[in-house]
């Protein structure tokens, strides 16, 4: 029988047929003749409860022996779905993630800082495998003069501010200026521009209040390469073009070297994106009363200039020439320079994974955890990474989903190949008491559901789906009050 079905399938079948787990033992001998050490549960710790964490968990659960504990830094789950995606983009994946979190084989532990409250080593000892899904949160710097001036901010913190990330809630970006420069041609840059020019009402209340009094009229999106190299996706660009009372401007000069044939030969997604950009370049009917979002290509910031108060007042841009090389399009500075006036400067030129433990190898060049198919280099078996921590901050959620599913498959395959090495591990039963003894307030998924309810109530009073709590203390308080 065991040769007819694969071992894994058999276990799954038996588990599913027998609702009472203890009955299992009477069947086990038939199945495990080939495998002397039958392990009943494989405990996996997942660090980070964003899309990578949940999608990896969903795929790992296909092995019915897997029990998953998801650890999250904040008291609230879902990572960038809650904090990164612009609120007017928040999709319904949260429902699917909630269903996963509510499964018996999954536990959520929030408000836990891995690396501080508990070390990676302790986790590796308590789990059969640990998967790092904590994303890429450190923003790349431009490394130019003036980057430390007042009102020069990482775009990611601006996103955190309007999305309610606790540590960014007091950012107070300077909005009493008509001109904002954003460096970078990715979706984060476009999201910032969209919120600056026409704030969606779903953002956190403190941000909405500030943005309603904003004087911002023009946002310049500056990229070092050309229209064919932009990283943003067409959906985000189209939304920008449809903002009420706002014109999106592309200069026809940027298309002078791009022929109709070139565009026609592009793969469909790039082709449609380029056609949309070209149609903006050909748009003649601009409204003088409208706000403006200006897409600037082939410009690199050389220096950020401040006023006597140390606040940013302008940026010096160098004009680039594009050079086609084998490994992509590179830029070379020309002698031409430009000055752009601005009172707020945001940079969004890429993100790096942070290291939560010195033993985790980081690739300095790419800013991700060194790994092969998710297996972290330097660790024989047991430490994996998935999501942006593994691939770099790029792409949209479907990419993260597919990559997470694939990494989970590799992990399950590893379990299969290392079956004899697998021993029963304590998992959270060892970690959580340790955390509590250290005075760490552990937030469970039930606790989160209370916060969730409270946020929805607060939101309905303001006529929106949700008003997020932005302070970690308030979140914890919400949990404690409900319990009393």
């Amino acid at each position, binding site marked *: 029988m065991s040769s007819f079905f694969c071992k894994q399938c058999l276990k799954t079948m038996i588990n599913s047929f027998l609702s009472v787990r203890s009955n299992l033992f009477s069947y086990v001998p038939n199945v495990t003749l080939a495998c002397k050490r039958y392990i009943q549960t494989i405990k996996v710790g997942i660090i980070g409860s964003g899309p990578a964490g949940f999608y990896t968990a969903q795929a790992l*659960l296909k092995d019915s022996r897997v029990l998953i504990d998801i650890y999250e830094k904040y008291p609230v789950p879902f990572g960038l779905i809650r904090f990164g995606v612009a609120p007017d983009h928040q999709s319904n994946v949260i429902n699917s993630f909630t269903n996963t979190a509510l499964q018996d084989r999954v536990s959520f532990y929030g408000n836990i800082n891995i690396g501080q409250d508990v070390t990676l080593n302790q986790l590796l000892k308590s789990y059969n495998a640990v998967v790092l899904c904590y994303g890429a949160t450190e923003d790349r710097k431009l490394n130019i003069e003036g980057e430390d001036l007042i009102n020069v901010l990482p775009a990611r913190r601006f996103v955190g501010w309007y999305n309610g990330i606790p540590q960014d809630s007091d950012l107070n970006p300077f909005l009493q200026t008509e001109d904002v420069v954003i460096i970078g041609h990715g979706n984060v840059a476009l999201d910032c521009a969209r919120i600056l020019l026409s704030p969606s009402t779903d953002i956190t209340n403190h941000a909405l209040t500030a943005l309603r009094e904003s004087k911002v009229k023009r946002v310049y999106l500056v990229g070092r390469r050309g229209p064919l190299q932009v990283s943003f996706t067409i*959906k985000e660009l*189209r939304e920008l073009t449809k903002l009420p009372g706002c014109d999106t401007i592309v200069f026809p000069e940027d298309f002078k070297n791009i022929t109709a044939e070139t565009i026609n030969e592009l793969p*469909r997604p790039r082709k449609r994106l380029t056609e949309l950009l070209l149609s903006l370049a050909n748009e003649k009917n601009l409204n003088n009363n409208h706000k403006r979002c200006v897409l600037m290509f082939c410009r690199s910031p050389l220096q950020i200039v401040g006023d006597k108060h140390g606040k940013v007042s302008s940026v010096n841009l160098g004009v680039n020439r594009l050079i086609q090389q084998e490994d992509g399009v590179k830029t070379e500075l020309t002698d031409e320079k430009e000055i752009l006036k601005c009172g707020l400067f945001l940079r969004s030129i890429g993100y790096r994974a942070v290291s939560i433990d010195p033993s985790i190898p980081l690739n300095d060049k790419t800013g991700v955890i060194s790994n092969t*198919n998710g297996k972290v280099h330097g660790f024989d078996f047991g430490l994996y990474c998935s999501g942006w921590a593994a691939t770099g901050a790029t792409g949209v*959620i479907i990419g993260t*989903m597919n*990559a997470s599913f694939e990494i989970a498959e590799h992990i399950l395959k590893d379990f299969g190949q290392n079956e004899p090495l697998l021993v029963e591990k304590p998992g959270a039963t060892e970690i959580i008491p340790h955390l509590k003894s250290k005075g760490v307030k552990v937030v469970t998924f039930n606790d989160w559901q209370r916060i969730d309810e409270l946020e929805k109530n607060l939101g309905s009073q303001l006529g929106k789906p949700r008003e997020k709590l932005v302070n970690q203390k308030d979140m914890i308080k919400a949990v404690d009050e409900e319990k009393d």
Partner: protein
Amino acid sequence: MSCSLVYRVGLSRTVIKSYRNLLRLSDHSSLFSTSTNSSNVDKKDQSKPDIKVTFIKANGQKIVGYGKTNENLLDVVINNHLDIDGFGACEGTLACSTCHLILKKDDFDKLKNKPTDEELDMLDLAFGLTETSRLGCQVYLTKEMDGLEVVVPETINDARTT
């Protein structure tokens, strides 16, 4: 038994899969859909889901679901509890491309509602995009579509070594 079936089907798709493997049936979705649909479908709507749609997965496996007029292909997948990984993540709000399906040219051309710019924008982010790709959540069933066969594209992209 049927009671526990419903419970289990609601619990986990993996479990359904294992039943299927065990029973070695080639087409058993109807077996399950009859017992589970009743809880999901609006009670007032008495018409039966009788439009048959076959989803052909990347590994060649065919799974069958039944839907009604004005339901879309994502509804069919959900209401029939069809096991397709990560399908319909945004629940039909045109915010992802996880319900990407490939139609036969004939079927694609016959569809009355043509893809909007917004649908095409999302499709542009899908893996394995073809000229006859649609988002399942935007394809609405009509009686004429009974027997439709659609391909669920392979979604795995390579997780590169970094």
